[in-house]
């Protein structure tokens, strides 16, 4: 089996699969990271990804272009992000509870809308998804769609915005010390809601990757916990975009690995053990980094002006 594993790592298809499964996680992780750097936990991600997946697919199915689908997914994410921002920032409600409520709302609304549109489809209707960029001379990248490229470009872009721009500084400031930011004349309200809305738009695009690139149809339960994984990955990444990319790819690596190992394992070990591996490793990774975790100081703390 050792030789098989070594052969697998030399295989370009394997690494292409890693990048492909990692892409929605990169979008989602960047979205969570942006929200959390501004001090807001967004447990709405699981539902927002479902809404993005549906909005993107529906737009293309209705005759829009693929990029219009991506934009629609971003808008769907933005809308739910605004709602989350309004509840958790504007009204200072519990971020945990509101986030879970948003997930429930976005998921159920999406499923409801899909079933209203397609009441009795035994086989889900399909679209023509993004094509692989076979014209690219880079081996692993040439097997990806433009959305993966977009995800890869967004990582340094978000890092740059957060580290080097006044907006990024302001976002980090409301996540670390909102009182100080308010003292500087910044609007904590606007900055936090802006960050949550933008981050949620990224989550929406992450969901759309599933329907517009990875698959060609909308399925129930297709997000299947990817959003929750992103929440874990951000902690693992220490709230840094570059490490978020690394974390997402690492998770995707183990996901691709377990798939191939369970095929190679020949039924000696139950396949469920392999499926558990990525989740268990995520928990272990969290334990490993938790001691040194540098969470934004004001994360999960609702901010009420004039209250201490």
């Amino acid at each position, binding site marked *: 089996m050792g030789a098989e594993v070594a052969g697998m790592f030399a295989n370009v298809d394997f690494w292409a699969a890693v990048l492909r499964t990692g892409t929605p996680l990169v979008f989602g992780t960047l979205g969570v990271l942006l929200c959390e750097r501004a001090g807001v936990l967004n447990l709405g991600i699981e539902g927002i990804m479902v809404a993005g997946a549906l909005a993107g697919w529906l737009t293309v199915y209705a005759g829009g272009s693929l990029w219009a689908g991506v934009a629609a997914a971003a808008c769907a994410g933005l809308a739910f992000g605004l709602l989350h921002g309004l509840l958790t920032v504007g009204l200072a409600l519990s971020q945990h509870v509101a986030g879970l*409520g948003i997930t429930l709302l976005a998921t159920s609304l999406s*499923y409801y809308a899909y*079933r*209203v549109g397609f009441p009795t489809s035994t086989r889900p209707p399909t679209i023509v998804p993004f094509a692989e960029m076979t014209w690219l001379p880079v081996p692993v990248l040439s097997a990806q769609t433009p959305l993966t490229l977009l995800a890869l470009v967004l990582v340094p872009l978000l890092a740059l915005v957060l580290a080097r721009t006044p907006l990024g500084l302001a976002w980090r400031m409301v996540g670390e010390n909102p009182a100080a930011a308010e003292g500087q004349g910044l609007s904590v309200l606007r900055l936090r809601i802006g960050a949550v809305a933008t981050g949620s738009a990224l989550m929406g695009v992450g969901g759309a990757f599933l329907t517009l690139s990875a698959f060609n149809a909308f399925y129930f339960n297709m997000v299947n916990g990817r959003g929750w994984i992103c*929440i874990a990955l951000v902690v693992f990444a220490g709230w840094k975009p570059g490490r978020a990319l690394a974390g997402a790819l690492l998770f995707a690596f183990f996901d691709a690995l377990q798939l191939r190992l369970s095929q190679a394992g020949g039924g000696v070990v139950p396949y*469920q053990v392999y499926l558990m591996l990525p989740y268990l490793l*995520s*928990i272990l990774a969290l334990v490993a980094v*938790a001691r040194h975790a540098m969470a934004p100081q004001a994360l999960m703390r609702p901010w*009420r002006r004039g209250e201490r």
Partner: protein
Amino acid sequence: MRLEARGRVAPGALIGAPFVAIAFTLLVTAALVAWAGAPVGRTYALIFAGGFGSRFAWSETLTRATPLILTGLAAAVAFRARLWNIGAEGQLYAGALAAVAVGGLREGTAAAWPAAVLFPAMLVAAMAAGALLLVVPTLMRTHLRVDEVVTTLLLNFVVLLFVSMMLDGPMKDPAALGWPQSVALRDDLALGKLIDRTRVHTGLVYATGAAFLLAFVMRSTTFGFEVRAAGANPRAAAFAGVPVDRTLFLVAALSGGLAGLAGAIEVAGRTGYVTLDMSPGYGYTGIAIAMLAGLHPVGVVAAALFVAGVLVGADSMSRDLAVPTYIADVIVAVALLSMLVATLFARYRLRLR
């Protein structure tokens, strides 16, 4: 825009808040029903009739409410201490599996035990399994500073895969013809019927009993006070001598235990064995129920009845009208969010400045 605490909270405002929230929910979902092209009034009438309109409707609602009360309590007690247990779904399955592991024994010494011994042993095993699944993440939070939201969420997936593995392997029912289903619970361990010729079982008594017991514990015992103190302000509580970590540990055991009990009660009262689809998200719905109830144990019973009625009613409604059953989940989600906002406005006013 800023929030300003109302100097005096009118008692009428707190009582009226849920009604305002429900009215808003009905308004929003009415728009969605109309969008689906169905008559709004008839849809609501059918949902209500299907959930509460007849003896059969009530029996189905009560059956559905039973596990929801327990998972709702699990969420309510944990959230009161600000222990974010999002893992009730996994804890429920762990409890169900443990119940069958004990109560499905056909050989060995324990199999010879009378039902009077094996039945409590089965419940204890289920509660222990559920509790363990929350105690570990809680210890990881208090000792290693690992956020329990993420760990309890991820454990749901691990547990479901573990259950699937057990149903394929050691706990597979050989008579199930390849259908993933566990061995059956011994017949003499099944819960009795509460109402004749319905599916309502005595698990409902356990669930409501647990709710009233928990209400008493939270209100009138030192432990209850410590839970509330640890949740309201852990630093102040620790300063006042409340053992915060130990309280969280006990809350975890209690919350996980309640979710595990929900699994055992479902097996003993309804299914008789474990399948991978025995819970359509009872653990997650329990969170919504706990929030609708304002984390109050007795309120959980009422909220669980409401949610169960909506779920059962929507199932029955969608057989007649072209409105997808997912409308039930939308109703629950909108009710939850509008309830949060309504109770906030009972205590605060919004100043636009």
